[in-house]
């Protein structure tokens, strides 16, 4: 074993031990599985404290340079720490848009001043970040976004409405896609990208109740909101390119994230455990041949996801359809999780109709809520249907729809 490998293994063990020792006690509410499920101050502050603690212990932001709060280590270290967190199933890292998307973007393309200003406070979760891309009338068709940004002296004046803004009401900053020129030939060329403060007059984030009954994202109104012109990232008209770069980070097609630990895995192991004592027709559920067959199908699929993630790193095994595995990872995984959770509820019998809050609900209604919440992943970040278009066009070379 090489020295680096030894160091890495030692490090992994160290993180695991720390996580075991410091994993927070059950807070008395269902912990979010993704950052899109943070719907109350109570949950927010719990996770903010936890992220801070993990940062102070030295387990996120490992690849970021020291002068900006990181440790300047190779990517393998962060992956090892993330793995250890997933393995110990500790609560997720909260500030995902900062840690995973805006942070790497600032690191890659920001000025030194921007790096000084933003990066460390992302790591400590002092500044929460949100993303203002989607609009009420322009979701999948993001390139058509119409929120306007008009230069006025040293400011840009923002008008328009963003929607589905995760953390909209908790954020200090937003990565904002807005139109600086409404008259370009190509719709994309009129867009610009801003690192916009949320605490200026004229910005209102109104929480929207979600499918689960909780809150967690907002409709975000800009009414003559003035932000400093220095918030512009890149040049006017380059916004689409910067937004696509951000999506590269969001979809993990490019590295540099301060952590990838932004969801707690729910696996077949959990499902099987949850059904251990379930009976059907007075027999153990796991004796039913159709249930067994369905469960094995899920096991085969779940295993293929892990294997494909590994295979994606082996170029010789990815030559036939380049980018196939990289571009289909999100689609495959999120659709799998959705179907698996849906099936889990179908196995609960009468108890499947109980919800969070009912004392008889299996695991406190965990699966019901998990199934609903999973749509955040099949819709957010580009819907499954849009992913299929992308794969059809970019991997198989099929014509545009």
């Amino acid at each position, binding site marked *: 074993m090489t020295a680096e490998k030894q160091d890495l293994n030692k490090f992994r063990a160290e993180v695991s031990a720390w996580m075991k020792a410091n994993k927070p006690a059950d807070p008395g509410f269902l912990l979010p599985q993704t950052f899109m499920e943070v719907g109350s101050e109570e949950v927010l502050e719990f996770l903010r404290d936890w992220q801070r603690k993990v940062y102070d212990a030295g387990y996120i932001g490992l690849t970021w340079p020291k002068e900006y709060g990181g440790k300047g280590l190779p990517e393998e270290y962060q992956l090892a720490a993330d793995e250890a967190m997933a393995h110990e199933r500790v609560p997720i890292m909260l500030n995902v848009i900062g840690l995973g998307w805006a942070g790497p973007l600032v690191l890659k393309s920001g000025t030194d001043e921007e790096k000084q200003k933003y990066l460390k406070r992302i790591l400590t979760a002092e500044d929460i970040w949100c993303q203002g891309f989607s609009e009420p009338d322009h979701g999948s068709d993001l390139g058509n976004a119409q929120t306007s940004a008009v230069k006025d002296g040293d400011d840009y004046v923002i008008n328009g409405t963003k929607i589905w803004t995760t953390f909209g009401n908790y954020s200090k900053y937003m990565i904002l896609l807005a139109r600086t020129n409404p008259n370009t030939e190509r719709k994309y060329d009129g867009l610009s990208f801003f690192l916009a403060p949320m605490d200026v007059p004229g910005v209102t984030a109104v929480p929207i109740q979600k499918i689960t009954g909780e809150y967690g994202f907002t409709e975000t109104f800009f009414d003559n909101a003035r932000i400093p012109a220095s918030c512009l990232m890149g040049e006017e008209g380059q916004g689409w390119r910067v937004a696509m770069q951000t999506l590269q980070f969001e979809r993990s097609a490019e590295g540099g994230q301060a952590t990838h630990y932004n969801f707690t895995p729910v696996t077949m192991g959990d499902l099987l455990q949850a059904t251990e004592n379930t009976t059907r027709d007075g027999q153990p559920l796991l004796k039913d041949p159709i249930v067994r067959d369905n469960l094995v199908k899920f096991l085969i699929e779940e*295993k293929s996801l892990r294997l494909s993630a*590994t295979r994606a790193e082996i170029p010789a*095994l990815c030559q036939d*359809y380049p980018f196939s595995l990289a571009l289909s990872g999100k689609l495959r995984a999120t659709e799998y999780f959705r179907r698996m959770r849906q099936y889990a509820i179908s196995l609960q019998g009468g108890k499947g109709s109980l919800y969070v809050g009912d004392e008889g609900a299996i695991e406190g209604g965990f699966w019901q809520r998990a199934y609903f919440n999973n749509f955040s992943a099949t819709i957010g970040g580009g819907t499954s249907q849009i992913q*299929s278009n992308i794969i059809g066009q970019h991997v*198989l070379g099929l*014509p545009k729809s």
Partner: protein
Amino acid sequence: MTREMNYALSFDDEQAMIMKSAREFCKGKSSIQDVRELLGSDTGYDKKVWKAMVELGWPGIAIPESFGGIGLGIGSLVPLAESMGRYMLATPFFSATLAAQALLRGGTQSQKEEWLPQIADGLIATVALLDSEDWGADTINCTAVDAGDTLKLSGTKWLVGDAGVAELFVVSVKYQDKPSLVLVNAGQFPKSAIQRHTLIDETKRAFKVDFSGVEVEKSRLLDPALSESTIRDLMLIGALLTAAEATGTAAASLDNTVEYLKSRKQFNKLIGSYQALKHPTVDILNEMEAARSHLYHAATIMGDGPLSDDMEIACRMAKAQATEALLFAGDRDVQFHGGMGFTYECDAQLHIRRAQWSQQQFGDAYHHRKRLASLFFD
């Protein structure tokens, strides 16, 4: 679930070389015209191509060097089989490989010394395992009984690959109430004992073989202590090779569909712009890719010894995933070609026929999932 899943998957430069040369070879030797020309032929393969394959050492690639092979292990068979499936290249390779594996895993030292070098040199051998339509049956109907110093066989085997050209048969029989394997030479029974099946996949050749009355020396029995596990392992290795071949054909079928979606116009638009066609085609890609991941995981962990639980899981998952992927690909290949898809001329028929063949070799998907369920839940 208490079982820890094995997720190992690696691929070294040597394997990449094999994959590359397998691609080039199969592509060069098996154009779709070549495939179609062989459909009506007697043996189903081109002797020159088989000879070239033997010269490359492929029949011996998984046979240890001490027995005249290349000794690259069973994992090296996966990229070969996949490429053969991709170009629908037919040869007795699968039959010979399975026979070699039977000998390697279950043969006596002298049997290995006698036969493995010959198979590595191109001797055509095959396995005769199935004597009903039921891959899951653990009974064997063919029998061997003592007749003085020899064994007398009786019973008929189904779907014996390449029996028309094979010189050596590894036959499963019940002997002294136990599953056993016995070697039979082609010369030991009349030609009339072999009857060719009419197969759904016209690129394949398989036969019914009546072994009744054949007498062999007792030294022709494979090691009795190993026979049961050898039969079990052969079924799994057969499933893995079928899965690899099917995955290759699923890619061929996908390419055939994509080609048409990019060239055929209706309503003034390329039909590939319709999502009702585009999205299922993406699903085919993803199912095929999932199959490939299972395959190369299996290739990573397989070894020459008796198969472990992890290996069994890998083979069964690969088979279940790959043949379902190909069934889906072939089915949509026909449908997405419209009227053209219904013709014999359209290559979709080759793929859909292969799909039906592959799903039934060494157990269908449901069969394997049933076995997996027992491994996981019982």
